[in-house]
């Protein structure tokens, strides 16, 4: 047991230790090297700016965060919806496949200027559309993959129960796809934040993180720019952590970990029947 808890301690502690080390080294380099804030702001002066501009930082995080959130929600809903249609109809599948494949490799931010004109520069809709498009791709791809995860044995079972199509979707397809859907949303979460933020560079209402970063940098107020960057990082992290938690919640093997190696929990070595592991295990966590 102690070995196990030591292991988790190392896993959680190592990144924190690395982070602290980098921060301290950064501060030392700036302090000892007497590097001007102008060239490289130190962590402490960035922290000072965070404190000084706290209200506007919070407002900016709120504004960019709202855009990202709306993009995430709308993009996810649309992504799941179209994926559902594509899993049910081969025509929809074939129609959407090339578009999504294209969308996946196309620089969506390039659309920012024209979207701003289309939706109006006083409107956040253009940015939200960018975020939504960026979110749509991974959610769609993962959902579709998830919807195709139903094992043949389960499909046979449903048929043997003479289950109606609606019942199959409710009882089998959606639950099997759920971990995949949330994996897609988790991946999309940081994309939503970055896209919403980058889109601010191409116009629209001010007050978000992106526009404040650029206007701070324009007068060489780099420590302040970094303070807003920190806001962006925190926002991205927040999205990531929340969506990761959601993902864990719906992934069966994570919800019910093999806490023990007690004989009752271990399947025989010849058995490959343990289907619970069909849920995707993530590389990112």
């Amino acid at each position, binding site marked *: 047991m102690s070995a196990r808890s030591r292991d988790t301690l190392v896993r959680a502690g190592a990144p924190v230790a690395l982070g602290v080390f980098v921060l301290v080294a950064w501060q030392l380099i700036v302090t000892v090297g007497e590097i001007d804030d102008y060239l490289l702001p130190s962590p402490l002066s960035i922290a000072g700016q965070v404190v000084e501009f706290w209200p506007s930082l919070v407002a900016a995080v709120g504004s960019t965060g709202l855009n990202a959130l709306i993009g995430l929600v709308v993009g996810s809903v649309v992504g799941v919806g179209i994926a559902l249609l594509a899993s049910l109809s081969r025509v929809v599948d074939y129609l959407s496949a090339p578009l999504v494949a294209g969308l996946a490799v196309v620089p969506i931010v390039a659309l920012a200027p024209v979207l701003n004109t289309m939706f109006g520069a006083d409107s956040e809709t253009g940015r939200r559309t960018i975020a939504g498009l960026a979110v749509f791709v991974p959610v769609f791809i993962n959902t579709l993959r998830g919807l195709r995860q139903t*094992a043949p*044995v*389960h499909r*046979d*079972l449903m*048929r*043997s*129960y*003479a*289950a109606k199509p609606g*019942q199959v979707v409710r*009882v*089998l397809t959606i*639950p099997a796809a*759920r971990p995949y859907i949330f994996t897609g949303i988790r991946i999309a979460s940081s994309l939503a934040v970055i896209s919403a933020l980058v889109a601010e560079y191409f116009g629209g209402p001010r007050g978000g993180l992106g526009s404040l970063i650029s206007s701070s940098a324009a007068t060489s107020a780099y420590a302040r720019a970094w303070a807003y960057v920190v806001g962006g990082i925190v926002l991205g992290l927040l999205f990531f952590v929340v969506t990761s938690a959601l993902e864990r919640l719906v992934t*069966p*093997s994570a919800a*019910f970990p*093999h806490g023990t190696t007690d*004989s*009752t*929990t*271990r*399947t*025989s*070595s*010849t*058995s*490959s*029947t*343990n*289907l*619970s*592991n*069909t*849920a995707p295990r993530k590389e990112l966590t």
Partner: protein
Amino acid sequence: MTLHNPSVKSVQTTDAVVATGVSKVFDAAGVTALDGVDLVVRAGEFVSLIGPSGCGKSTLLRLIADLDEPSGGTLQIFGKSAKQARIDQDYGIAFQQAGLLPWRTVAANIELPLELHGFPKAQRADRSRELLDLVGLSDFGQRYPDELSGGMQQRIAIARALAEKPNLLLMDEPFGALDEMTRERMQTELTRICAETGAAVVFVTHSIPEAVFLSDRVVVMSPRPGRIETVVPMALGPAHERGDQIREDPTFFSMVTAVREALHQGAPARGTDNR
């Protein structure tokens, strides 16, 4: 809605399965999996299908279950079409993989077919308790499948197949993934369960001792195109009286030998088939 309508299901005078000249061609692959199969499984009878890999055992079972459609011949399940029998839930089915839904508790897995067919909650709970007792896993109803061993999962799958008290049980290598000792234990248990429910069973297996131990008749199939080679009748006495000691009985060994020989007759000479 009641779980069991004796007037319809219990009094079975017709045969469980009647296959006449059944054949199956997989067009896309150009494979003739079954060719002119005739088979009758009487009500309450335990019939095993045995044969080399790819001879069409699973295909035949899937045709009976109406999971696939035959290319030729006719199939009657309790005197109805296979499709009707499926819709009426005349059979229960179990596969090599237990195929439990990992996001449902064990009890909810057993109740799944009942839920799909609209049985009220209380009745479902009763039935799953009953079935958990039957397979000896009463304490595990609220666990999740991945907390169970392979053998336990397979017992749950059998319980699920029995949920609607079918008069026909279709099983495709249900013990194939278990280790030998667990397997023997499961076999003994299955004979007991069959004796209790009185259901007919069509059982696919690769193991000769298993087929011999369980069956009233063993159907030996030959490969490509799948045909019934021989039917070897067993004589180990009534199912519920078969105990572990039978496995050491000379009759048992002689039947094993009989099936082995039937099997090897149909099999091609060593070396030509490289599987």
